């Protein structure tokens, strides 16, 4: 545990706590919504990992006009998405597949985009986003911009060819990119030892000629500090770096996974390292916040999730025919003629 506030003021320290609380509250709200039948698809918790995404994203330059740093989150890094301005209501709309959401019901959960705010949602095929972020940050270097990019991926994703091709490309091209390895010790039911023979991902850094370090992913301030240092190096021209978050996935891969392949004692052990509890205790101990302030933040997080979710629930699903639009920017794809007014294809 680090002893200082790393130069952060009271407001910022509270902002960090707020982001942690929002992440937790949003996911708990999701679970509720799912039980009520409002969610399309799975719910993927990041319980125990909240501090990694929050601490890392907090160390970046967040803007809303397309001039800030770029972020590619994962489903377990929703906290980063929120810090970058992703709205709670959009988060719920996405999970509920509403037509009012940012992808108008076409894509799931955190797979959404806002280039002005600076985030690009992932796609499911693992590894891909490292290639994409390598290219985004390449463009920063080519144009001499001071921006950097950050891409998150789990331990399991490191086995993919895309991870390697993207990271190696970035390293060689000195793209200002930070790869955050979310080492939560599991990839679905597969322990990290079956995805790689290394015990820490920092061992992979030298193989790409890039700097890499590990940090306790349950300690939001430690993460913030490590990533801020990495970001400074990257921004000042060092090129690509890697930061490994060490923590544990305290829930199943998704709601449907009872996680019975995990030793319950291990889960209990990690419950004691809950990032919200740890940070809360620190805030109080260091007198960076009062109990009342914290309760207010918690209440606010809870309330804003409830309000956003309720608003989203009432909103409409997309219209079926919207399925055919925007496949191209210009060409309209053929309409399925059997659903046209006449089944005669010569009239379509």
């Amino acid at each position, binding site marked *: 545990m680090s002893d200082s506030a790393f130069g952060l003021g009271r407001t910022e320290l509270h902002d960090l706590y707020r982001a942690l609380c929002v992440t937790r509250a949003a996911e708990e709200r999701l679970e509720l919504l799912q039980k009520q039948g409002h969610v399309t698809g799975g719910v993927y918790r990041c319980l125990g990992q909240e501090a990694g995404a929050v601490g890392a994203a907090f160390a970046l330059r967040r803007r809303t006009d397309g001039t800030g740093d770029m972020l590619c989150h994962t489903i377990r890094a929703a906290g980063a998405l929120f810090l970058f301005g992703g709205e709670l209501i959009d988060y719920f709309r996405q999970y509920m597949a*509403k037509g009012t959401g940012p992808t108008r019901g076409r894509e799931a959960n955190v797979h959404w985009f806002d280039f002005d705010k600076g985030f690009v949602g992932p*796609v*499911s095929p693992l590894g891909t986003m490292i290639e994409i972020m390598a290219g985004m940050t390449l463009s920063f270097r080519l144009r001499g911009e001071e921006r950097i990019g950050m891409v998150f991926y789990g331990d399991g994703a490191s086995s*993919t060819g895309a991870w390697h091709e993207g990271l190696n490309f970035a390293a060689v091209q000195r793209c200002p990119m930070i790869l955050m390895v979310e080492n939560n010790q599991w990839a679905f039911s*597969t322990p990290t030892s079956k995805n*790689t023979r290394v015990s820490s991902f920092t061992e992979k850094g030298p193989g790409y000629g890039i700097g890499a370090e590990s940090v306790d992913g349950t300690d939001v301030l430690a993460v913030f500090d490590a990533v801020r240092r990495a970001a400074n190096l990257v921004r000042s021209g060092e090129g690509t770096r890697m930061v490994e978050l060490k923590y544990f996935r305290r829930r199943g891969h998704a709601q449907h996974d009872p996680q019975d392949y995990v030793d319950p004692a291990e889960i209990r052990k990690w419950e004691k390292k809950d990032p919200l509890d740890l940070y809360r205790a620190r805030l109080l101990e260091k007198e960076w916040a009062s109990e009342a302030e914290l309760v207010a933040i918690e209440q606010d997080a809870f309330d804003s999730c409830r309000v956003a979710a309720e608003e989203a629930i009432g909103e409409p699903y997309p219209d079926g025919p*919207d399925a055919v639009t925007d*496949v191209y920017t210009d060409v309209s794809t053929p309409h*399925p003629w059997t659903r046209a007014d006449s*089944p005669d294809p010569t009239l379509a």
Partner: protein
Amino acid sequence: MDREIPEHLLKTKNGEPVTMLEAISEALFEEMTRDDSVFLLGEDIGVYGGAFKVTRDFLTHFGENRVIDTPIAEGGFTGAAAGAAHMGLRPVVEIQFMDFISPAYDVITNYIATSNYRGAGPMPLVIRGPVGGGNRGGPFHSQNVEMAFFHTPGLKIVYPSTAKDAKGLLKASIRDENPVIFEEHKGLYRAPALREVLPDDDYVIPLGKARTVREGTDLTIVTYGAMVHKSVEAAETLESEDGVSVEIIDLRTLLPLDEDAIVESVKKTNKLLVVHEDTRTGGIAGEIAIRVSEKAFEWLDGPILRVTAIDAPVPYSGSLEDYFLPQTGDVVNAARYLAAY
């Protein structure tokens, strides 16, 4: 192997009906029991038993050397399977969702499919996994992958529509000396209507042979996978409401295509409708149309038509996906139009 067979894999032995998913599990289990050289590779297939539980309890029964949990590297482990096949093993690879076969596209099309032709010998290798839409899976958990591989000589592609076919075709695929892509529709896995009691013997359904699901005289529907069932529904409507008699051919194997079965049926009914769940442009309907044009043009009394998904990625939201996918009503409309042609 003196371990007991897990209870849920004894249903056919006990004369109980099985789902398509259970039929697939049985096929794998029986082939692994019959032939020591058959082994499994894939993500989360061991302790977890696979994302859809197809290999539940296989690990305890067959051990770590025959049920291998791989790193997340579809290209890597499919390539490794090919190497093992060179050395006399018969690997069955599970792709967790067939959408994720694309990182293996290179090794499948360039290495695996060309092995026998290049003189590197037979390539007994099955790549299987869940496909298809209707589950609100969005663009990356809903794809049909046949057309990514249909154009690659050297591959076989199998896509069963019933529990019985799934078991017999999977066994045939595992025994085949050529690489087989085996597509399992998620919507059929546990569909109650598909539960059936299977023959208790070691039956095999030959690759490359279509099945006539339903005889008819007015019109032929060529289809496969989940669309077989929507087509049957449509045919029943057409028969009862319009008195139209529809013949339905379930392709079962897409590559090699059972051209003879298709042509023969068209020569009888003189009308052809192709129904596939996959997207429209570049779908298999095109190849079927030109084969029929080549071989039975004179028998055609109407245009060859098709009912398919829309040309778009698979959208996530239910309303969009339902619109995206071909529906029974679409089959009815098209068939009605064609019958009256």
